[in-house]
């Protein structure tokens, strides 16, 4: 009995060992892919045309979804703030509330999650389809490095476009808040925008002119963009099992990148608060 138990324990440990090794290997592949894709941005050949194409696909085509998300989120924030602040007689501070929430947290987070859903899934499906129809192998046989040709433009485009989309999302959110503040709470538009700026100024400045809120709001989408693009490319390139595999890669991309975005958001916030103060 004891011997059998030992054997089972060893078997269990071996399985655990294999699973752990697989996970570590996956993690390693993820970082290697990310490193290579960035490294290829500084050497030739560089596919500039593909970068512009991806910036259009990732950024411009995500504009409407980000505008809508931001605008309605800002409206909801203003509405909820008006109810809560009314009890203190402080409805004039709606602008500060919306601004702080949108620029520091909700703007980057929502833009990241929306882009993970729209762009991440698209990248994984596209590269996955290319993998299962042997187009990735075809690139290899034609003497092209698929990472340089496919991954680098997508990673760079996401790194550039997600912060841009976040700024637009922030603005749309604050605008949505101003509509509610003016139409529902009857706060003058000028007062609303003045409180928005007061909130930004209250957060402090780095290098004298750059508001800390903007640093919070732009560092996060930059990191989220890298996560989305590398996760999507990684799962896309590793797709196997035909069309079903493409579906699996797409789902895994959205789930993994969403979870990673939410997790890293916490750690980035901690770090930024530690370095920049409140």
């Amino acid at each position, binding site marked *: 009995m004891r011997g059998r138990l030992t054997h089972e324990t060893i078997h269990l440990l071996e399985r655990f060992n294999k699973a752990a090794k697989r996970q570590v290997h996956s993690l390693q592949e993820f970082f290697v892919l990310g490193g290579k894709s960035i490294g290829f941005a500084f050497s030739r050949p560089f596919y500039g045309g593909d970068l512009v194409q991806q910036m259009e696909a990732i950024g411009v085509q995500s504009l409407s979804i980000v505008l809508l998300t931001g605008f309605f989120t800002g409206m909801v924030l203003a509405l909820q703030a008006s109810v809560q602040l009314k009890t203190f007689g402080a409805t004039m501070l709606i602008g500060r509330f919306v601004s702080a929430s949108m620029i520091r947290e909700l703007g980057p987070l929502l833009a990241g999650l929306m882009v993970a859903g729209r762009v991440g899934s698209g990248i994984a499906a596209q590269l996955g389809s290319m993998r299962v*129809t*042997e187009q990735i*192998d*075809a690139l*290899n*046989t*034609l*003497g*092209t490095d698929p990472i340089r040709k496919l991954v680098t433009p997508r990673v760079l485009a996401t790194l550039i476009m997600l912060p841009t989309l976040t700024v637009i999302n922030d603005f749309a959110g604050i605008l949505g808040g101003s509509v509610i503040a003016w139409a529902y709470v009857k706060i003058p538009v000028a007062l609303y925008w003045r409180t928005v700026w007061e909130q930004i100024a209250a957060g402090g400045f780095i290098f004298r002119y750059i508001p800390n809120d903007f640093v919070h709001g732009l560092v996060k989408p930059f990191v989220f963009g890298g996560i989305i693009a590398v996760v999507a490319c990684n799962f896309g390139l590793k797709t196997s099992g035909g069309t079903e595999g493409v579906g699996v890669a797409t789902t895994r991309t959205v789930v993994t990148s969403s979870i990673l975005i939410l997790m890293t958001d916490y750690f980035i916030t901690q770090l930024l608060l530690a370095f920049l103060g409140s």
Partner: protein
Amino acid sequence: MSDRPDDRSDERRSHEPAPAREGTGFPVRRGADRERVRAAIRTELEGDEEALSQAETREYHAGDPSHHRVIALQNVHLAFDEPILEDVSFAAVEGETIVVAGESGTGKSTILKLLLRLLVPDRGNVYIDDEEITQLNFPDALKVRQKMGMVFQGAALFDSMTVFENIAYPLREHTALTEAEIEERVHEKLSFVDLDPDRVIDQLPSELSGGMRKRVGIARGMANNPEIMLYDEPTSGLDPLTTATITHLIIKLQRELGVTSIVVSHDIRSAFKMASKIAVLANRKIAFFGSPEELSGSDDKYLRDFLGGY
């Protein structure tokens, strides 16, 4: 040369079918049987003028020792979770067409991936143009791949690009040709594969039939004028007429351009028409390597079953 795989094939560069292949255990029929087999092959090729010309070309190459080995696999072993290939060796001299045949899942396509260095063997060597490629780094492997054109089973055309852009892709990547020269080359290659350039050039792969996609795949593979062409199941899933067209194209490439080809296929009829030599994979090993005549003449039960009375 002695360190190259299967040096015995030098001895086989003659019009006469080789004696029983040493070490394989698959003896070849002799005498009257041999004549019968030859007659059967001639009958099969009768009425197929191009194939006959190719057969002559094949004999020319088989007897010409001046041609060097373009492709060679030497004692290659490969395993993933299970063994895939064991002690696989064969070589192709310049201008030869080697057909790698075998049942599904025997590792035929894996051989192409080894030649392209998309895979690296666990043991053994792979030579392209006398260069050992298993130890090459990734950028050097990309350079070696430029010597080869690959035609995939499903054509693997880039579905977001037009036919023109697909064929122009390797030219834009690796040559300094002007756009006018590229356009001329694309037209030339499309005409070679019997497609009307003006009709198909702006079409997307999704707008083409299976046979047309295969032909565009061949045109893209040969765009850079490679010295080696690799085909993965070029005739699978095609109707008999399109199969004959693709087979003729492969023969035409070898005959007119002297391209060395490795064709992975289980289409025995086409294999006999185009092959200088046939390698049969069975149980992870080369069960037979020799001329189509030798294969037809084999007494081995497995080979006879595999040929299905062909």
